[in-house]
C-alpha cells in the first residue's frame, strides 16, 4: 500500500530547514508505518517571512536587459512559448473552459522565474523546464514529469487564493500542500531541487 505524508517544514524562526530535512521526514514516515498507522500526518511547515533578497524576475524573457546564464535559456524559452495560452478563447476545450488572463500568466511565470533563480543562485543548478499549461477554470499548471519524480503546481486565477502543489517520487514519498506563490517556500524549493 502506498502511503502519503504531508511533508512541510515548520519553524517559528527564520532559519531555513536543514539540508537533510526531507530525509528526516522520510524517517518519520517510516516510523509511522512501523507503528501500524495507515495514515501519517506529521506535518512541518516553514513559515519564513519574505526573504530580504529581491528575487527579481528571471533575467530572461521578462527583463531582456539583464544577461541570462546560458544554462537557464530553456526556462526562458518555455516561458516565452507559453504566451500562446493567452490566445485561448472561451470554451477552448469544448467543455466550457475559461480563458487564461494575462495577470494569471504573469503570476505563474514570475513564480517560476523566482524559484529558478533561487535554485541557480544558491546551487548553480538549473531546474528542468516544466510544461506551462492552461486549466479549464482559468488557472495555470506547472508540471514536471520525469521517470523519477512528478510535480504539479497550480497557480489559481484568483490572486487572493493560495497555490496548490503535489509531488511524488512515483513510489512512496510524496509532498503536497498550499503556499503563497508571491514568496519563496523553502520546503517546496527543496523538493524542486529534484528537478535539476
Amino acid at each position: 500500500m502506498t502511503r502519503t505524508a504531508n511533508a512541510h517544514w515548520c519553524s517559528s524562526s527564520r532559519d531555513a530547514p536543514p539540508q537533510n530535512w526531507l530525509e528526516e521526514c522520510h524517517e518519520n514516515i517510516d516510523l509511522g508505518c512501523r507503528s501500524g498507522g495507515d495514515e501519517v500526518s506529521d506535518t512541518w511547515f516553514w513559515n519564513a517571512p519574505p526573504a530580504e533578497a529581491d528575487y527579481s524576475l528571471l533575467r530572461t524573457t521578462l527583463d531582456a536587459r539583464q544577461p541570462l546564464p546560458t544554462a537557464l535559456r530553456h526556462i526562458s524559452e518555455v516561458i516565452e512559448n507559453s504566451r500562446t495560452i493567452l490566445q485561448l478563447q472561451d470554451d477552448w476545450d469544448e467543455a466550457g473552459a475559461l480563458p487564461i488572463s494575462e495577470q494569471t500568466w504573469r503570476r505563474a511565470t514570475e513564480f517560476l522565474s523566482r524559484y529558478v533563480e533561487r535554485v541557480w543562485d544558491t546551487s548553480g543548478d538549473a531546474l528542468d523546464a516544466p510544461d506551462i499549461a492552461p486549466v479549464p477554470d482559468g488557472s495555470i499548471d506547472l508540471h514536471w514529469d520525469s521517470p523519477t519524480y512528478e510535480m504539479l503546481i497550480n497557480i489559481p486565477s484568483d490572486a487572493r487564493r493560495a497555490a496548490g502543489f503535489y509531488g511524488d517520487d512515483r513510489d512512496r514519498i510524496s509532498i503536497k500542500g498550499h503556499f503563497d506563490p508571491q514568496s519563496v517556500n523553502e520546503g517546496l524549493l527543496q523538493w524542486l531541487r529534484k528537478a535539476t
Partner: protein
Amino acid sequence: MAEESDVAAWAVESVPDSDELYRRVHKNHFKPDRTIRPGAFRDSNLSTDWAKYSSADDARNRARTPDDNAVVKMAVNEVRRIPDQTVEHSPLPCNRAHTEVVGKKSEEVRVLLRRISTLVIPLGDM
C-alpha cells in the same frame, strides 16, 4: 426498439470495480510531446462514459468536434483508490453510459488520474 433520445430516464446502476470508463481529452490538453496534461482531469464532476454502454469511438463521437479529441480509458477500481473519488452512474436521456468521477480534483488527484489513464484513441494531427 426506441432510440436512446426517446427515453426519458435510464435507471441508475452501480458501476462494478472490474469495469472501465472512457474519457474524452481535447487537443488543448495535450503537451507538445503528445502526452496528456493534468488539466484534463479538473472537473469535480468529471464526465466519462461507462464501457458497459459505450465504445471508445462512441465517446469520441459525442464531442462537438470529434477530430479534436482523443479518448483515454480508466479502470474503475483504480479510480476508486484515488483519495476522495467516487464513481457514479449518472445517465442522460441521450447517453445511458454517462458516468461521473465525483470529488474535489486536487493536484494530487489530477496527477493520479492522469497516471491511471491509458490512451485508446490518439489524437490525429495536432
